[in-house]
C-alpha cells in the first residue's frame, strides 16, 4: 500500500512536469497576435464555427497580401464550449501565455460578459461578436462589439408591428442567454410602443415540441406572435404554429437570420418577418448602397470555400477588419493606441452595416442598418 502510494505520487509529479514543460513553448515574435475564443463546441457551435472559419480565411488572405504594416497576423484560438468559465480561462491564457495584442470573440453574450472584468483589468482591446446590449451598455473602456444589440432588434420589430397596427402580441422565447436577454428587452420596451404582451411563454432550447405553449397562445387574444430564440427551436415553433393552424403573423429575431433556418422551417417559414443584418440580402441592396460591394465580396469569398453564409460569420469579419484597420492606422501594437483607434472608426462598411464608433457608442451601428426582411417563397426579401 505504502509503496503504491509513493509510486503514484511520483507518477503524478512526472505527469505534472511533462504537462508544464509542454505548455511553456512560446511562439516567435514580430507577429501581430490576434487572440480569439469562440464556441466551437456546445450548443452555440453553429455560430462559433462560421466565425472561426471567417477569421482563418481572412487572416490567411491578409497574410498573403503581405500582412498589416509589413507584419504577419497570427491567430491564437481557444474553444470555450459556450461555457463562461472556460471563456475566462481562455482569455487569461490569451493575455498571459500567448500575449496577444487584441482579442476578438465571445460567440455568446454569456461568454463575452464573463470576460469583461478581465480585459478591463488587463487593459486589452476586446471586440465581442455577441448580441446582448449589456456588453457595451454602460460603455466599458476596452470593450467593443460588432453585431446589432438585442435591444435594436426588439425596437425594429416593435416599429414594424406599430406600423401594421398590432398592439396585443404573444411572446414565446427560449431559455438560453440570447433568448432571455431578448425577452427582457421585449418586456422593457413594449410600453414605449404601446404594445401589451398578452401571453408570455417559454420553452427549453432542446425541447422537441412547443404545441402546448402555442395552444395557450392561441387562446390568448393576440394579433401577432414574436419568437425570440436561436438554433432549431424557432424552426420547431414555426412548424408547430402551422400545425395548430394559427393564422397570426409571426415575427422571429435576428437569431435565425441564416439559410439553415429556412431549410429547417421549410414552407412554414413563408410570411415570417425578422430584423437582420444586410448581409443576407446583399443582392437586393441598391447599387448606390456603399455596403453592397463589401457584402457581396465577403459572400462570394466565404461561399466559395465553406458554403452558405450566415450573419454570424459576418460579425467575425467585422470584428477582424475593425481591429486590422485600427492597427494599420496606429502602425504599432500598442494596446492603448489600438483601443483609441477603434473608438475612432468612422464609415467602415461592415456586414452588419456602417460602423461609426465613438466614445459613447462602442458598437457604432445605427438602427437603420438593420433591415426588416420577410420570408417570401423560401427566401429573404427586404420590407420597404
Amino acid at each position, binding site marked *: 500500500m505504502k509503496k503504491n502510494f509513493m509510486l503514484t505520487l511520483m507518477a503524478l509529479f512526472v505527469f505534472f512536469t511533462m504537462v508544464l514543460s509542454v505548455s511553456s513553448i512560446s511562439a516567435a515574435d514580430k507577429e501581430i497576435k490576434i487572440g480569439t475564443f469562440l464556441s466551437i463546441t456546445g450548443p452555440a457551435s*453553429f455560430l462559433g464555427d462560421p466565425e472561426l472559419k471567417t477569421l482563418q480565411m481572412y487572416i490567411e488572405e491578409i497574410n498573403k497580401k503581405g500582412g498589416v504594416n509589413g507584419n504577419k497576423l497570427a491567430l491564437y484560438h481557444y474553444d470555450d464550449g459556450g461555457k463562461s468559465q472556460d471563456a475566462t480561462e481562455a482569455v487569461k491564457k490569451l493575455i498571459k501565455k500567448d500575449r496577444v495584442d487584441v482579442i476578438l470573440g465571445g460567440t455568446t453574450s454569456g461568454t463575452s460578459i464573463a470576460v469583461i472584468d478581465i480585459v478591463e483589468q488587463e487593459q486589452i482591446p476586446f471586440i465581442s461578436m455577441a448580441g446582448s446590449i449589456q456588453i457595451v451598455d454602460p460603455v466599458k473602456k476596452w470593450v467593443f462589439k460588432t453585431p446589432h444589440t438585442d435591444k435594436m432588434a426588439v425596437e425594429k420589430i416593435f416599429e414594424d408591428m406599430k406600423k401594421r397596427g398590432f398592439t396585443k402580441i404573444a411572446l414565446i422565447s427560449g431559455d438560453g442567454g440570447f433568448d432571455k436577454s431578448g425577452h427582457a428587452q421585449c418586456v422593457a420596451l413594449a410600453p414605449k410602443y404601446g404594445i401589451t404582451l398578452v401571453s408570455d411563454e417559454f420553452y427549453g432550447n432542446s425541447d422537441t415540441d412547443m404545441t402546448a*405553449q402555442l395552444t395557450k397562445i392561441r387562446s390568448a387574444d393576440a394579433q401577432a406572435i414574436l419568437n425570440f430564440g436561436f438554433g432549431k427551436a424557432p424552426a420547431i415553433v414555426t412548424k408547430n404554429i402551422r400545425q395548430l393552424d394559427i393564422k397570426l403573423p409571426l415575427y422571429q429575431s435576428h437569431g435565425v437570420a441564416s439559410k439553415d433556418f429556412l431549410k429547417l422551417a421549410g414552407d412554414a417559414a413563408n410570411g415570417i418577418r425578422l430584423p437582420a443584418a444586410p448581409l443576407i440580402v446583399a443582392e437586393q441592396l441598391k447599387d448606390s448602397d456603399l455596403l453592397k460591394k463589401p457584402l457581396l465580396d465577403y459572400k462570394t469569398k466565404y461561399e466559395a470555400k465553406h458554403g452558405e453564409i450566415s450573419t454570424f460569420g459576418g460579425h467575425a469579419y467585422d470584428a477582424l477588419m475593425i481591429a486590422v484597420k485600427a492597427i494599420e492606422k496606429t502602425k504599432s501594437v500598442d494596446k492603448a493606441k489600438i483601443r483609441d483607434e477603434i473608438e475612432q472608426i468612422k464609415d467602415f462598411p461592415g456586414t452588419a452595416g456602417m460602423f461609426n464608433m465613438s466614445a459613447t457608442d462602442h458598437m457604432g451601428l445605427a438602427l437603420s442598418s438593420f433591415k426588416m426582411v420577410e420570408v417570401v417563397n423560401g427566401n429573404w426579401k427586404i420590407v420597404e
Partner: protein
Amino acid sequence: MLQNIFQFLITGLTVGSTYALIALGFTLIFNVSHVVNFAQGEFVMLGAMAAIFFSGLKMPLFLAIILAIILTTFIGILFEKFAIERAKGASLTSLIIITIGASIFFRGLALVLWGKNTLSFQHFSGENPIRFLGATILPQHLWIISLTAIVVTVLAYFFSKTLFGKAILACSYNNKASKLIGINVNLMLVVSYGISAGIGALAGALIAPISYMSYDAGTMLGLKGFCAAILGGMGNSFGSVLGGLILGVVESMTSGIFSSAYKDAVSFIILLLLLFVRPQGLFGKGVSERV
C-alpha cells in the same frame, strides 16, 4: 379550455411516445447487464443522422431508414464487442463510465461525419395536420405511436414466446446460472446491444422530421428516455412505455396550464415525489436484500 386540454393531452401523448421508444432501448440493455447505457440517446441521434444522410443520397425513404437502422445496430454490436465485452471484471460503475465515454465518442463521430448544423428530415407522409375533436396531430405522430406499439408487441412476443428471448431474460435474472445451463451470455449481450441500438435508430428516424437532429441532440433525448424508464420501473418494457407517456403528458400539461418556464422542474418534482412514495418506480419489482 376543454379543447385546449385535449390538445395538451394529444401533444403529451405524441411527445411521450418518443420518450417511450427511447426508454425501451434502455430497458433492453438494463435487463441483460444491469447497466444504464448513457449512450442510448446517441444511438437515437446516429440513427436519425444516418437516415438523413442516406436519404440525401437520393435513396427511397424506406430504404434509407432500413439502412440507418442496420448501420446503427452494427455500431451497437461493435460497441459491445470492443468496449463492454473487453471490460471484463469492471464494476458496474466502470461500465457506466464506458457508456458515457461512448456517448462522447459517438457525438464526436457524428460531428466529424456530418458537421455541426442541425439537419431536417422529410415527414414520412406529408405535413398536413389531421384534425380530431378540435386538436391537431401530424401524420408523423401517428407513425411514431403505431411503430412504438408494434415494437412493444414484437418485444413482448420475443421475450415471452421465443427461446432466444427467454434466454436473454434468463441472463437478466441470474447471470451465473444462465452460464451454467449453457446460455452464451456474451452472445445475449451482443444481441441486446444490437437490438437496443436498432430500436434507438428507429426512434431517431421517426423523431427527426418533427424535432430535427444535430450531433449533440441525443443527450437530451437520452435523458428523457432514462426518466421514462425509471418512472415506469427499470427493466419493465410495459412500464417504460407507460412511463414515457406519463412524462410526456405531465410536461405538456404543466407548460400548458401552469408555467412553461418551470415545466421541466415541475416534471422532475413530480418524478421525485413519485419515487419517494414508490421507490421502485410504477411497475418495478421491489428490491429486497436476502440475508
